């Protein structure tokens, strides 16, 4: 701990990293990769939002004429696929990257280059999937891609090929990232950071990685079968040959239901960070929050067939899956109550981040309850394939995941840019998004119960559906305005936002001990952790008296964060909402990793090339359907060879210079 003089904790640091395009293309720094994930996924959020907006324009009145039926199919398919695979998952991955190493007291992830590889695969895979728009053959089989609709017999263009290959590419990205984060969390925790002291976001992220590791191979195989059926004439989903289209549904939902928790648990984690900070109370029932997260993930693998009640599996299977589905309501309900009890009696500051977090608690509860409604097969048979289901999953995914992720963006923006987002614009964003969201999706409960089917491009007048659809469309326009305000806020706050200092919110976890933005090596000295809330131990020990510590009397001692010892950290506690105070005007320079003698991984362009060649290898399968199998073979061999050479060159180059 001899580096107390190094890495002084202060705001307005004069620390500068290398900038420029090349430094971003070759970066292996988890924080930069997280920022790349953030901006890429927000870009796709705009694309997916535009698709949704077009859908709502089409449905604004009866017999809309804006788009054709074929176009409508492509729009709703790509809206779902984009929002799930290109927005919520990578936006969560942005937070995994930004936060996990900081929260556990590590200098980077376990495999920095693999981390860069995951991002590039995601970027190229997402571009590949959207290239389909340019040739007018975007995926049109729904995000679930049910067979036989997606088999060659009924879909002979390239639409489904883009979808099927794109998802396989994106799967590689998610799996590589999951191996990386599990290893990071298991193996790179700072001394004293045992599992039951990990910040709850890291816990939820940890659980999500296991879901990814176990769920993605299943959809990979389902997609491989589909690909073989379409390209090589196998008979997996072909009824004439004895195959069963239900095989697809089972494999898809064995992946698809854990996927739902992959989408929501990171948002739960973020909210569990935001609410204690703004309530100035430790998280209520921390261990139970952890256990309920694990239980949700575990049960999540045993409920997949509740997506399939309508196919007629028989009363025993229906009952079994109805019961397991209702069981999941218990750990989820526990979380809701724990968030409420965290706020109860707390000194709640209603910042924008806090409002979004509270919105998650409220809206997810609505979506959760409608979910329990169609956990019951008789009810589900009435509701399935109607707008009621659309209302349900937008309450959990938009009202849940997206609100939670927005809470995370407002909460963590200052940590990674050094500046706060505007609270004024943020309030406009929040209220418009909240009102617009409810105006869009609440009426869908009614239009759904009145029997309006999903995925249908028009409806007739005179069925009482007009008013609900008009309300939904107006809500969508309001949301569009909210998103524009958010983007504007994101951009202008980068330059004009108030300076944040290290810890603008008075937060309890390790990441707030570092300068904003943190130096590339994160921690000059690896911190030693004695409780769940190391920063509160230092700054406001009265808040953590009930939290277990290493030993009696050791409470605020021995906590050594970012090279600074206890008591030397200066900060403003209890700032007014958004009113970050520049707590420390020290102009002391932050030392570079080289000066501190910290070994840093070398930047590398190789992960980008390997990802590019891999994507091109998958893309080279398209000519098989364009009647050019010879060309496809040559291209596949070419890119596979290049990928392998790139991989060898990557693996045979050491990560760091020898010391």
């Amino acid at each position, binding site marked *: 701990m001899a580096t107390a003089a190094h890495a002084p904790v202060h705001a307005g640091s004069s620390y500068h990293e290398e900038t420029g395009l090349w430094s971003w293309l070759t970066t292996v720094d988890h924080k930069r990769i997280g920022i790349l994930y953030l901006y890429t996924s927000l870009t796709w959020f705009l694309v997916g939002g535009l698709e949704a907006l077009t859908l709502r324009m089409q449905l604004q009145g009866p017999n809309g004429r804006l788009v054709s039926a074929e176009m409508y199919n492509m729009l709703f398919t790509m809206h779902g696929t984009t929002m799930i695979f290109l927005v919520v998952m990578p936006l969560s991955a942005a937070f995994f990257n930004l936060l996990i190493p900081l929260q556990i007291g590590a200098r980077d992830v376990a495999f920095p280059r693999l981390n860069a590889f995951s991002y590039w695969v995601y970027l190229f895979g997402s571009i590949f999937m959207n290239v389909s728009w340019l040739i007018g053959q975007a995926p049109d089989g729904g995000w679930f891609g049910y067979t036989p609709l997606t088999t060659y017999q009924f879909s002979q263009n390239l639409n489904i090929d883009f979808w099927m290959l794109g998802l396989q590419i994106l799967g590689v990205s998610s799996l590589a990232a999951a*191996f*990386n984060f599990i290893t990071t969390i298991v193996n*790179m925790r700072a001394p004293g950071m045992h599992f039951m002291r990990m910040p709850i976001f890291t816990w939820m992220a940890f659980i999500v990685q296991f879901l990814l590791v176990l769920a993605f191979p299943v959809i990979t195989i389902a997609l491989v079968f589909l690909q073989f059926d379409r390209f*090589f004439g196998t008979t997996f989903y072909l009824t004439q040959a004895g195959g*069963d289209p239900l095989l697809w549904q089972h494999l898809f939902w064995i992946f698809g239901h854990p996927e739902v928790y992959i989408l929501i648990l990171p948002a739960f984690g973020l909210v569990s960070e935001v609410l204690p900070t703004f309530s100035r109370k430790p998280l209520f029932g921390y261990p139970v929050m952890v256990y309920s997260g694990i239980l949700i993930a575990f049960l999540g693998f045993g409920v997949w067939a509740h997506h399939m009640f309508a196919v007629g599996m028989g009363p025993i299977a229906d009952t079994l899956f109805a019961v397991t589905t209702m069981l999941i309501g218990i750990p989820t309900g526990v979380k809701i109550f724990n968030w409420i009890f965290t706020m109860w009696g707390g000194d709640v500051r209603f910042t924008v981040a806090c409002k979004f977090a509270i919105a998650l608690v409220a809206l997810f509860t609505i979506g959760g309850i409608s979910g329990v409604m169609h956990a019951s097969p008789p009810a589900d048979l009435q509701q399935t394939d109607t707008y009621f289901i659309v209302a349900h999953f937008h309450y959990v995914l938009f009202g849940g995941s997206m609100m939670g992720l927005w809470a995370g963006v407002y909460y963590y923006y200052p940590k990674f840019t050094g500046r706060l987002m505007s609270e004024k614009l943020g309030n406009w964003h929040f209220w418009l998004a909240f009102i617009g969201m409810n105006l869009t999706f609440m009426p869908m409960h009614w239009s759904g119960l009145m029997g309006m089917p999903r995925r249908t491009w028009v409806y007739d007048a005179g069925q009482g559906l007009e008013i609900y659809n008009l309300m939904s469309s107006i809500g969508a326009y309001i949301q569009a305005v909210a998103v524009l305000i958010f983007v504007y806020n994101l951009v202008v706050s980068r330059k004009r936002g108030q300076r944040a200092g290290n810890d603008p919110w008075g937060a309890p976890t390790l990441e707030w001990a570092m300068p904003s933005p943190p130096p590339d090596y994160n921690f000059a000295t690896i911190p030693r952790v004695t409780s769940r809330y190391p920063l509160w131990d230092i700054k406001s020990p009265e808040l953590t008296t009930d939290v277990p510590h290493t030993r009696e009397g050791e409470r605020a001692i021995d906590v050594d964060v970012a090279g600074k010892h206890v008591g030397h950290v200066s900060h403003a506690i209890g700032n007014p909402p958004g009113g970050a105070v520049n707590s420390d005007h020290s102009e002391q320079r932050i030392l570079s990793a080289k000066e501190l003698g910290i070994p840093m991984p070398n930047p590398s362009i190789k992960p980008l090339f390997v990802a590019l060649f891999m994507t091109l290898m998958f893309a080279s399968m398209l000519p098989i359907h364009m009647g050019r199998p010879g060309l496809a073979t040559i291209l596949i061999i070419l890119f596979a060879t290049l990928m392998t050479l790139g991989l060898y060159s990557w693996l045979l180059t050491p990560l760091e210079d020898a*010391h």
Partner: protein
Amino acid sequence: MAATAVPHPHQGHPPTTTGLDHRKIAIWTFIGSECMLFTSLISTYLVYKGRSVNGPMPHTTCGPTTNPPCATELPAILDIPVTSASTFVLLMSSLTMVLALAAVENKGKPGWTGILASSKTWLLATAILGATFLGFQAYEFTSFVHEGLTIKTNLFGSTFFTLTGFHGAHVTVGVLWLLTLYAIDVKRGLGPKDALLVDISALYWHFVDVVWIAIFTLVYLIQ
């Protein structure tokens, strides 16, 4: 596992939480993922077993002695004796893999001399045994095609070729991995410091081997 406590190669890095190398944990999570991959493939094979509407069939499904009986006998296409031989070859490769790891770990120790200490021999032997297994598979696939079973013929063909093909692809990757290690061994020699490199490849290799035991039992032996 004797190679678990390999110190991190660089000074200046904090020790890992578990004391294990990152790569060791990563390979285990990877194997966990691969389990789900093969589970999906094997389950599909079993679900579709006996549902092909035309031949060839894996086992004797219909003949004068079967229940229900029928006049014309459909011969079994799976050749259990030949596959038993290739299974034996693959199992032996796990043995040579263990010997290769032991040779690398104990290089330079007293008493480790001769062929037992030659990691090059055992790495190459493992790769050759793996390649032999692939040779058997190539022979099997070709003869099936000659007997009229392709990946398009029926459900059995689709599920069988996909499942065993995926396994074969994994063996191929393993052989390339082993040959790479062999090349490194020839170039600069592998010693106890490199045990982890061999250890993780061994974990992968044994996993691929175990998967084959499941496939051999469920696809070939159980009728």
